[in-house]
């Protein structure tokens, strides 16, 4: 596969390490989250057959975490974003 890095252009996916669903960015605060929230965050997945937003890390590259929108049926990639920007857009900060 090829991931079109937003800063570096197309790179072989072999340079990247895969983590999983982009919802892993939505970590609840451990001091305030309920047991159920923390469990669902850590363990449950939508696992869609179709469009999937997912985290890839450019380990053999610029060390950016990316959010890649990829179809799990066709592997077509329709969007690649810097995870840091996505995190901020989801309200994460410090």
């Amino acid at each position: 596969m090829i991931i079109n890095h937003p800063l570096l252009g197309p790179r072989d996916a072999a340079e990247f390490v895969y983590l999983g669903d982009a919802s892993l960015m939505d970590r609840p605060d451990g001091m305030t989250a309920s047991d159920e929230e923390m469990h669902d965050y850590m363990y449950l997945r939508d696992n869609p057959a179709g469009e999937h937003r997912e985290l890839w890390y450019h380990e053999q590259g610029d060390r950016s975490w990316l959010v890649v929108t990829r179809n799990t049926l066709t592997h077509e990639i329709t969007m690649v974003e810097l995870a840091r920007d996505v995190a901020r857009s989801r309200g994460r900060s410090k």
Partner: protein
Amino acid sequence: MSQSNRLTGGLIDRSVSVNFSFNGKNMQGFQGDTLASALLANGQRLVGRSFKYHRPRGIFSAGSEEPNALVQLRKGAAQEPNTRATMAELFDGLEATSQNHRGSLERDFMALTDLFAPFLSAGFYYKTFMWPKAFWERVYEPIIRSSAGLGRLSMQPDPDVYDHGYMHCDLLIIGAGPAGLAAALAAGRSGAQVVVADEDFLPGGRLNAETYAVEDMAGADWAAQAWAELQAMDNVRCMTRTTVYGAYDHGIYGALERRTDHLAASEGRPRQVLWRVYSRRAVLSAGATERSIAFPMNDRPGVMLAGAVRTYVNRYGVAPGKRVAVFTNNDDGLRTAADLKAQGVEVTGIIDARKGESLATTWGRKGLTAVGTASGRSIEADCLAVSGGWSPNVHLTCHQRGRPDWREDIAAFVPGADLPPGMSVAGAANGAMTLAAALKEGHAAACAALGDLGLSPAAGDAPKAEDETFDIKAFWHAPGKGRAWVDLQNDVTAKDVKLARTEGYRSVELLKRYTTLGMATDQGKTSNMLGLAVLAEASGKSIPDTGTTIFRPPYSPVAMGAFAGRARGKDFRPNRLTPSHKWAEEQSATFVTTGNWLRAQWFAQAGEKGWRDSVDREVVQTRRSVGICDVTTLGKIDIQGRDAAEFLNRIYSNAFLKLPVGKVRYGLMLREDGICYDDGTTARFSENHFVMTTTTANAVLVFRRMEFARQCLWPDLDVHLISTTDAWAQFAVAGPNARALLGKVVDDLDLSNEGFPFMACAECTVCGGTPGRLFRISFSGELAFEVAVPARYGDAMIRALMQAGEEFGAIPYGTEALGVMRIEKGHAAGNELNGQTTAANLGLGMMVSKKKDSIGSKLSEREEMNRDDGLRLVGLHPVDRNDMLNAGAHFVELDDHHPDMFSDQGYMTSVAWSPELSHSIGLGFVKRGKDRIGDIVRAYDPVRGKDTKVEIVSAHHIDPEGVRQRG
């Protein structure tokens, strides 16, 4: 028998004759021959035996689809099983032997199997061999196994080397037949970056096998001229002997280039290069594969595809037989007869299925002698040219699970609409069955692809050729008595297909699995279509309603060695060496592999009888005076930023916010699921600058997770990470004389307990000005320091340390002694931090702060992870001090006479011989272990036949109060 079947003409070089042997018999051919064409030239018709019935088999095709003529090529370690004679280029000294027979090829003892064929119908083995039960593995299976299989591996290491490569192009053209050449010319002339690849050693495809003209010259001449033009272009990469074997995601193609297979020896050069081709667009112009017709006894040597007959006659100047009959359902049969006649070969009959004619049988035990028509006529023939039409080579269009479509007019599957993105198909592969159409399609496909990319095609039209006719009437299966083969290699007959259907294996996929149809080395290239047609006929359904044939990579088989490339032997993975490696080698160190690192395991000295002597000495001398260990492999991460302390406080489960500058703290890292992940120390060199160490094994993983936390969880923290593992050479200096030794090395730093107390750190210089870092940390439990210098000074540093330590009898110690000392001290390491243990298991529950949120803290609170009867880390001593403990033993109660997984009390994680205690000691996890200090249990180790009484003790076997390390 000297090339008795050689004709005139062809594209071979008759000035260069080539000697080769088949089954020990010496023969001659010419440069430009394949093994198959040379065998035919020499009149050798019988070349192999089929898989199941050991039927005699001859050459069936002239390309990579060959199901029959598989030979064992070369000798010794270089021998290569299952090599298609039709693809093997002749070279001087080539040695080939036939496969899958017991006794000689001509008198194969296993051919008896054929007599039992009625009992060996499709799937017979699923219905028998079940009784008596024990006989399967002892009797039946060994017999089946030894008669199955085809060629043999030499069982010696592959003597050749392989390589990988990467190519990038605007347009990849797969196949250099007429369509591919037309595409390549159009794209090449436009200036685009083009790769054009063909599996043959002679580009041109069918142009080399037919008598067509292109642009008013002989087709083969035009192909050669086009190729020469392409080769002269800087922007075009022309590759022969290169099979594009797979279409992967996003325009990546796999291609195998055979670089030395046509030579007698590869002489150290890569035999094959596996290319990963990154293409923006691709044109598949891979042509089509001719198929046979299922008629009774259609498997004899001499029965050959009509297109192959033309190839041998026209390209190689070889007559596949002296008297040839033709059986066809399309115009190619007539063309074959004409080409044969033009070369003076006798054509004894043409059976044209379009006229209602058919074949009912054939004769000839080891080679065809005659064929019998349905109307009862017998025609003498030593070769039968069969054409059942052509199947476009849609394989690569299916590699991303695209489905082909049926086209009734050519009775074939053509590429469907769901092609791999970026791919277009041209020529016969697309169902364009005439030369003029193929040239046009190739040209148009290239122009369209260039247009897609925003490039402008060069002016000009497609090369011109006369449009011949292609008239076909579907005809798959001639009725009649006797077996009609569908899959020649695996001996699947039309009857087998029908039987499987009767038995309920109706989906074409079930049929293939049950009968093994299409599972042979040709991947069904010559059999799938026939099998599907016979199934359709039996079901009374149309072919497209019955199913499709789809294909998976590779297009044709690829050597394992090529996929592996250079990664074998010592080059399987890179070596990481510590800065003191060279020095350690000089000290006769034994090295151990830890991940990719090589570390000194111990340093043997003269007179030591075994590794234990060395390790004991290293431990004793370290604890008595001073020892030095290279600990460079520990991961090091430079952490800087205004929020670095806050960041660390969230990464580590214990508090880090208030770590003073100049101090080091032990840190425990959890995974988010609350399990212990890694541990190490982190030093604070300034307000905003920390240096973290991780375990050797987890260095990369910890860095990755910290980047995740930094970018994805808390994107607005100002914190920056740089891996500095390789940047610093770091040495542990441990033992009562460590301070005195370092005092001689470190410049201008007060190393007294007051000036540089336990867990202090500082930037410093050593040896008169070399920059360094000093940490007062201890893994051994002794008074200890770690000193770091930039890696390029590492070699000099170890030498300086040893020199400075001479007066103390300083010794180097390796990972074994390091392990012994940490077990004596009760420090957890990899065997305990195995990804299954909690902080509570390790007795570190207090380190998980409940006053803050850190990675893993929340989920570490779950009930089952905090059970009172959970595992706890303890020490173990053998009750009989002479007993040696074993890691991996389980703990069971003294009175547990039938221990099982539910009465299991835990397991031994690490063991060592303690020179200090003079007996074996262990660390392990025991249920409720902290409450069981002093209890005796058994270390139960049935796999090594041991059952040892052990006493549960504190994990801190020595100096539990930590007096030494603080001294």
